[in-house]
Structures are given as structure tokens and as C-alpha cells.
């Protein structure tokens, strides 16, 4: 595979050094003195995939609790201190990890390390019922705002539920269900912390205008005494057959502004050369304003308002390629679907032209330049490759691997994976508000039916 390169000077002459504390905390340092800022990024190897039935959303709700104080940090002190120091900060939760990050003026770096160490080592000293109740309500409003009160807002959740079958660790998305969020107890949160938030289950990356020796000293001082936890459970196995084996399909009657065709394909795991080839295939088909699908559906046929493909790279389960087409005017979905199928089959039958591959590679190279162009972006990518693949240096060579893929490899992955029997299709059919009372039940039964079909398909 194309990922054996280590310690190579990557794009932009960027380098990083790796260290490990006695308690297992992995540390990655990368110097960049162009701007007096320093990014701190901490990835914990825990995400939604570690959640169990009945407790979906726990990893993300827990991420919120990490901002509610620890032994030496009162209440909202984490936010107040970082922002008061001129820093910016946040945390996010995905299937495979939870991350926390601060970007600080360089002279405030030590504060960020002190804060992260305090909550890694002593969160439970401050965690209480009041915080849990409050952040549960906040997260439920986050769910409403980002998914439930937005047209097509639950599409992603529906597609992952189809592509990753019942019982699979990626069957549910990080936001979780309202019922499960309601069910979380303080004991759940405490147990989750004990099981996952240990220095040996984390990678800390610090990038920017830093003195590496001094920074290592601070990390040793603040994090070094936090005990490791030997019983961190590895994530459940997410292996699935390469191909779903049949087309899964769900039609949704909802109050949306336009018909939509969405589809999710099972694609190769992140970290493989085939995954890079798949990303290029999706880019040829559906990235930018001159992709095959954009040219066909939006420019020529004029059947779509937008048409694009996205890739969710996953390391512990098949990656997910996501097609999103919004229909123009009165266009019917079968007409769009036939065109999509034709374009996908054409890419599987015949390799893209050199110009098409060049375009796709240039767009992806540009994305990498953007990602690595900020200290925070670089810290995040270093953590990502360290947590998921054990080697942060891969962040600097990722773009080289994409540029190494050939047109034939793009064709091959399209032929193998972008097939009707390897996708979950969502069709949105708009209804007016007067009709909606009747659709809630209709949706529920459609989802149930699809679960069964999906089970049968395995």
C-alpha cells in the first residue's frame, strides 16, 4: 500500500516529531514560526462506534460535559479562560474519535495544555447532575437545529442506518436519538469517561510557533502524572462485505422544497490505495462545477439544481460515498436516476481522461493545501493519522498518494463499488404541510421495512 513512507518531508516542507509519555500519551510536535499562534489538538480514540444500544449520542453528549469544569476549572472556565486569552476552541465527535482543540496566541500555549490536562485527569471531580441535565437539553436543541428542523436534515442518519446494518457500530450517527439522550444517566457518563478518557487512548498534537523542548516539558509536567488505563476496549469490529449485495431503498414523503435523490455507497476503508482511487472517482463524477454529474444534470439535461458526491473516509468500517441531487422544477426522480446510473456505469467501463484525472487531483490537492495551511488544520490531521493509522507523518504524504493514482485504478474502483447493488437510495418526495400529519406513521413503517430488507441482504 502507498502509506509506508515515514519522516518524509511532506508538501510545504512540513515535518513533525513524535514522543510518548510513560503513561502512554502520544505527543506530536510540529514547528511553524510564521505566525505567533499555536494549535493544541487532542484526539481521543473514542466515538459513536463505541456506544451501545440504548445509549446512542453518549459520546457526543459527553464531549459537551468536557466543557463543564474539572477539578481546578470551575463551570464554564475552560471556555472563559481560552477565549479570555485570545484563543479559540471547540470539540467535535464523529464515528471514530472525539477531538478537542484550542488555537492560542503562542504565548498562551501553556494555559491550553494545563486546561486539557485538568479535564483529562480530573473531570469526574466536577461532573454533576446539573451539568448533565443542562447539556442534555443543549444537545437535544443541537439535534433539532442541525437535523430535525432542517429540510433533508435526517438524510445522512437514514443512509448510514441502511449502509451499516442493525447492530453494526456505525449504524447510528454521533448525534444519537432523543430517546437515548433522555436515557443517559450520570453513571453512564462517569463509566464512559473511565473507560475511554485515558492518556494511553489519546494523541496530543501541538503545531505552530512553539519551542519544542519547552513544550515537551509542559506536556510532561501537566499530563505526565495522569494514570493510564489498561482496560481501554478496542472498538468493535466494523468489517462488512465490500458490496451490500442489493439496492436498499427508502422513499420519504416530507415537507421538503424539492424532490431529491440521494444515495450512499459502500467504499474501501480509509488508509488503502483503493480509498484514494475512490475519492478521485467521486471527484471526477461529482466534485466542483465541471464534474461529470454536474455537467450532465445541471448544465446539459437541466434536470437538477445541484448534483454532487462526497466521501466520508472511515478506517474501522467501509467508507461512505454520498450522492446528493436536488431535482429541478417538476423533474421526476427516475429520469435523474437513469442519468446517474449511466454516468456511473460509464466510469466503470472506461477510464476517465487524463484531463479529468488532472482536474480531480488538482481539486483534492487544493483541499490538502487548505487543510495544512493553518496550524489548527495541521494539528488535526496529525492527530487523525496517529489515532487511526498509528503514524502522524502520513498527514504530510496523503496528497502524494492521491497524486499517484492512475486513471485505470479510478475506473476499477468505480466498476467494483459504484454499482446499484452496493447502495442505499433515499428518494425525497415533497408533500405540503396539510399532508404531513399522515406521513409520520408512513415514514416509520418505511424505515422498519428497510431494516428488514437490509437484514435479509446480509
Amino acid at each position: 500500500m502507498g502509506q509506508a513512507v515515514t519522516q518524509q518531508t511532506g508538501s510545504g516542507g512540513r515535518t513533525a516529531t513524535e514522543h510518548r509519555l510513560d503513561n502512554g500519551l502520544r505527543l506530536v510536535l510540529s514547528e511553524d514560526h510564521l505566525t505567533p499562534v499555536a494549535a493544541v489538538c487532542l484526539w481521543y480514540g473514542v466515538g459513536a462506534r463505541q456506544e451501545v444500544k440504548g445509549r446512542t449520542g453518549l459520546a457526543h453528549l459527553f464531549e459537551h460535559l468536557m466543557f463543564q469544569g474539572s477539578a481546578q476549572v470551575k463551570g464554564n472556565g475552560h471556555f472563559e479562560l481560552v477565549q479570555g486569552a485570545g484563543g479559540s476552541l471547540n470539540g467535535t465527535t464523529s464515528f471514530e474519535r472525539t477531538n478537542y482543540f484550542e488555537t492560542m496566541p503562542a504565548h498562551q500555549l501553556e494555559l491550553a495544555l494545563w486546561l486539557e490536562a485538568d479535564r483529562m485527569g480530573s473531570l469526574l471531580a466536577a461532573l454533576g447532575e446539573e451539568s448533565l441535565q443542562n447539556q442534555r437539553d443543549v444537545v437535544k436543541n443541537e439535534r433539532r437545529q442541525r437535523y430535525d428542523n432542517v429540510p433533508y436534515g435526517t438524510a445522512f442518519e437514514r443512509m448510514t442506518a441502511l449502509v451499516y446494518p442493525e447492530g453494526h457500530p456505525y449504524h447510528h450517527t454521533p448525534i444519537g436519538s432523543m430517546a437515548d439522550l433522555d436515557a443517559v444517566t450520570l453513571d453512564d457518563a462517569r463509566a464512559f469517561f473511565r473507560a475511554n478518557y485515558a492518556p494511553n487512548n489519546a494523541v496530543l498534537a501541538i503545531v505552530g510557533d512553539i519551542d519544542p523542548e519547552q513544550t515537551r516539558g509542559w506536556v510532561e509536567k501537566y499530563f505526565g502524572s495522569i494514570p493510564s488505563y489498561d482496560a481501554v476496549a478496542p472498538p468493535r469490529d466494523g468489517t462488512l462485505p465490500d458490496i451490500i449485495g442489493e439496492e436498499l431503498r427508502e422513499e420519504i414523503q416530507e415537507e421538503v422544497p424539492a424532490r431529491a435523490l440521494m444515495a450512499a455507497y459502500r467504499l474501501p476503508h480509509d488508509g488503502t490505495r483503493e480509498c484514494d482511487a475512490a475519492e478521485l472517482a467521486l471527484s471526477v463524477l461529482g466534485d466542483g462545477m465541471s464534474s461529470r454529474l454536474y455537467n450532465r444534470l445541471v448544465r446539459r439535461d437541466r434536470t437538477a439544481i445541484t448534483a454532487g458526491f462526497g466521501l466520508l473516509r472511515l478506517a474501522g468500517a467501509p467508507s461512505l460515498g454520498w450522492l446528493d441531487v436536488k431535482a429541478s422544477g417538476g423533474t421526476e426522480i427516475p429520469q435523474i436516476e437513469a442519468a446517474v446510473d449511466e454516468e456511473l456505469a460509464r466510469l466503470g467501463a472506461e477510464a476517465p481522461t487524463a484531463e479529468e484525472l488532472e482536474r480531480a487531483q488538482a481539486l483534492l490537492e487544493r483541499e490538502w493545501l487548505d487543510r495544512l495551511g493553518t496550524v489548527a488544520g495541521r494539528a488535526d490531521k496529525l492527530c487523525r493519522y496517529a489515532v487511526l493509522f498509528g503514524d502522524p507523518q502520513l498527514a504530510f504524504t496523503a496528497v502524494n498518494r492521491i497524486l499517484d493514482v492512475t486513471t485505470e485504478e479510478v475506473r476499477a474502483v468505480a466498476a467494483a463499488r459504484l454499482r446499484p447493488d452496493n447502495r442505499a437510495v433515499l428518494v425525497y418526495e415533497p408533500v405540503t404541510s396539510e399532508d404531513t400529519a399522515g406521513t409520520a406513521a408512513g415514514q416509520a413503517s418505511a424505515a422498519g421495512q428497510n431494516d428488514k430488507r437490509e437484514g435479509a441482504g446480509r
Partner: protein
Amino acid sequence: MTDAAVTMDFYPMPASGQAKPWAFPAPERGALANGLTVLRCHRPGQQVVAVGICLDTPLDAEPDGLDGIATIMVRALSQGTGQHTAEEFAAELERCGATLGSRADYLGARVSLEVPVSRLSKALGLLAEALSAPAFPGSEIERLVRNRLDGIPLELASPGRRAAKQLAHELFPASARMSRPRKGTEDTVARVGAAGVRAFYEAHVRPATATAVVVGDLTGVDLDAVLAGTLGRWTGDTAEPLPMPPATADDTSRVVIVDRPGAVQTQLLIGRIGPDRHDRAWPALVLGTYCLGGTLTSRLDRVLREEKGYTYGVRAFEQVLRSPAPHAADGATGASLLAISGSVDTASTGPALDDLWMVLRTLAAEGLTETERDKAVQNLVGVAPLEYETAASVARTLADQVEQHLADDYQAQLYARLAETGTVEATAAVVAAFPGNRLVTILVGDASQIKAPVQAVGTGDVKVVAG
């Protein structure tokens, strides 16, 4: 309390180190022979160069009944030129790893290019082609019009966008362009055709009234030569800047519910208008607004989110709408939208509004604290080097300054002004900006659930309109 048993070593909170100097970059201002103003700024390490082209085509310049033609025109610049079809143009640009965006707004239109520096010359050549020789093919204009017509319901489905449309409609007189959607309505967009687009372009797009902002790592780039061979070839006549009618708004306290039966949340947008950045009180307004609703530890979220859990977050902000260069005689005559925005779960709508008004009343009665002011200054000034790490963020601010007729060192000076602004001034500015009895409230939500509780809050007449 076994949970509290902590075995790590604790240390006192560290003091900060010595701050390193940082200043918002000063651009170098110049002009090409064709009259195009150029602001350039070298940012070491920023391999993706950001180019912003400011065009003097404020939405007020749109012909009557053709709202949205400015948006179609700037989008159409890249949909076919004398040398490339629309498809070819997009493919050429993307083979450079470039992205091109455009938008038309009350202050003017902007075309934004971002491209790796290694392909800057090629991409600038394409940009020059789009600006100087757009073909405006009838079929492409038709496509853009239809795409826009399709896009309107998609946008209005978003509660935030729907609220913004309603607030503009409520605040501004119907005759003012600002009362109507930036990208037009179904009626006006449907009337846009290729001839009209060309006429609008010919009337308002020319190098003499445009500015190019170029920011990035320009090491080894002969930018003068590159510009001469690209944007320098764009030709055109001269024109006077367009006059800007002053903005007026009706901020009589009232509530409009945009009915969305079954909505699980209510989108709030509460606002009025205030001054633009030329106003001497602007730094105080920025500071006070941050204290009110800049982050989750600001006054609004401290109650609505972190105490009550009604919301994922509520923010207070200002957005400049009108910013003419002030004449010495009449001072600043611009305008900005001052607003509070966020969403709350349907059942909490009444209590959330009660609390929101309580926060405003408390602020007016007691003012900001010194600590609050200090932290706000430390944040607003301290985050500057983070905010302006990328070329794109620097280019955006420089282009905003151009559009708003501000000096090139406006942002650099703003940090000094913020640091000088005291608690009393910041309090005065934010209290004047958000008076509890002069705010228009837009609520996008389920009227059957929220109307009665909202009436009980007592912030003015409550009207319900269709969603």
C-alpha cells in the same frame, strides 16, 4: 465520593508568556494603467492565494423590477467567455485547483478566486477573461435564471433565511431595495434575460471602478507582470461612483410569526438598524455586542444555553448594509443590521423570549462589568492572529474595507480602538443598539404553539404570516 478521587498532580494555572507582536497586514495600494485599483499583501507560507475583485454594483443599481439581476450577472461572468464555453471555463479553472465564487450585495458585488500560487497566473488569466469578455450566452442565462428560481424555495425552507427575509421586509420601506431579497423573488428573477444582463454589465462593470485584492505567499511571483498580462488587459471607460440613498427603518417594537406548523424549534431573529463602521462608537458597539452575545459565555448564552438549555446557541451580531464615504458635513450616514439570532425548542419559545428580554433589561439597568469588558477586549484583540492566518481571511477583510469605503489600515486601527474602549462606552453602545422597546422580532415556528406564550411576553403586537 470515589469519583472525585483524583490521582494526578495539580499545578496552579500558568501565567501567560511574553506576547509576540502581531499586526493586521498593511496592503500595498496601487493601480494598473486601465484604472483598476490593486491592493496586494504578501503572506509568507500561504500557498493558496486569495484574490477578491470588488465591483461597484450595489443592489440599488438594479433596474426596477429586476431584483436579482446583479446576482445572475456575476454568476454569468464565468459561464462562457469569448474563448471558452461555460463547461470549458469551469474545467480549466478546476484543473488549476482553483475555486471561484461570486455574490452581489447591497454594498457591491464580489468575485473571489482562491488558487495555489503555482497556478496563479493561469487562474488570473481566466478571471480576467470572465471580467473583460463574458459572452452571456442566452442559453446559460436561461439556465442560471431557472437554477435561481429553483433555488428560492430551497433557501426559504431554511428557518434562518426565511427569518432574514421577513426582517428586511418589516424593517425597511417597500420602496427600498434593502426591503427585498438580495437575489430577487420569483417574479423579478423570471424577468431577467441575456440582454438585460449584458446591459447591466456594460453600465456597471469596468476596471476603473473596480478593485483587485491579492493576498498570499508571493515569493518569487512577479505580480506586476502577471497582472499586466491578465487583469491589465481588461479595458473600459470611467464612471462616477453610484449615489447611495440613506437607509431608514421602522423599528417599532412588534412580533411577526412566520408560521411553520409542526416545527420542533422556533427560529428567532430580533433586530433593528444602527450605524456603520465609520461611526466613532463602532469599536464600543463591537465590544458591547460581544459581551451580549458573542460566544457561549456571553450574557445571552450564559442564561439561554448554559443555565436553561433552551438553545444550542444564540448570537448577537452586526452586519454592515450601507457604508458610503462620509462627507465632512453630515458625518457617517451608513447603516448596519444589529440583531440577535438563534433557535429554541418550540415549548421553550415564550420562556426564552422572557429571559432574553430580562438579559437586555439587566444590561441596560446595571451595565457591563469591568471584568466582562476586559475579557472581551482580550478575546477580540487576541484572536486576530488566529483569524487572519489564511490569505482568504485577510483578502476578505481588505475587500470589505474597500466596499465600505474604509481606510486600508481600518482593521489594524480597530484593534487599538478596541483596547482603548472603556466599560462605560461599551455599555452605552450596546444598550443603545438593543433597546428592549425598539426591536422587531421575527419568529419562524409553529404559530399554534407559540402565539399565545409570545403574546404574553409583551414585546409588541403579534402578527402571523404564512411560512
